[in-house]
């Protein structure tokens, strides 16, 4: 079965410094991986997705993620954090018999200090 593990429950950075949110996946075949973001009292918004086309995936708001098969990782990065990036981030893998079920990680809460 497919699963993801988010290695940090909370990450705190200063505004203008890099962001790294870590995610490892477990999959018996080439996975489809996603990062979603949830701002307070808002829904789940797709940041980016990996579907085997390119290992470095660029998303919205300056975020990107690199798929590393050798490390079974899909870490999310951003060169310079902004206050508006404060939110909860979910690493997600597609799963299920028909591939239409998403399995979520536990989430990482990103705090951005001014």
């Amino acid at each position, binding site marked *: 079965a497919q699963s993801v593990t988010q290695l940090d429950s909370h990450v705190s950075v200063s505004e203008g410094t890099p962001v790294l949110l870590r995610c490892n996946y477990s999959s018996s075949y080439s996975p489809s991986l996603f990062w979603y973001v949830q701002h307070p009292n*808002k*829904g789940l918004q797709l940041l980016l*997705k990996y579907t085997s086309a390119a290992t470095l995936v660029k998303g919205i708001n300056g975020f990107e993620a690199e798929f590393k098969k050798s490390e079974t990782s899909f870490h999310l990065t951003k060169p310079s954090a902004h206050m508006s990036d404060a939110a909860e981030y*979910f690493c997600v893998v597609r799963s299920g018999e*028909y591939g*239409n079920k998403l399995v979520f990680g536990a989430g990482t809460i990103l705090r951005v200090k001014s």
Partner: protein
Amino acid sequence: EPEVTQTPSHQVTQMGQEVILRCVPISNHLYFYWYRQILGQKVEFLVSFYNNEISEKSEIFDDQFSVERPDGSNFTLKIRSTKLEDSAMYFCASSEALGTIYFGEGSWLTVV
């Protein structure tokens, strides 16, 4: 940009009452889903729906739950007799085939 819309945004209900959560998926999407997130826990898959039938469901989705697409635009989740442990944020989502799954803003259900 098209979006998934959900109503109500927040509902408080008495234990044992029936609840219906409503969703309007993105118009050209064919796959519909419900997920839930109990406070402090992971987002969990409940059910997927395609071609007017359930295509997959989790062990959470027991006989107390049902889904329906009553017309061409709405997709509903019914909980027949709510329990305290049903209190959660319920997310509706939709997708084209196996494409990106888009989520609504959620319906927060509180069972008292």
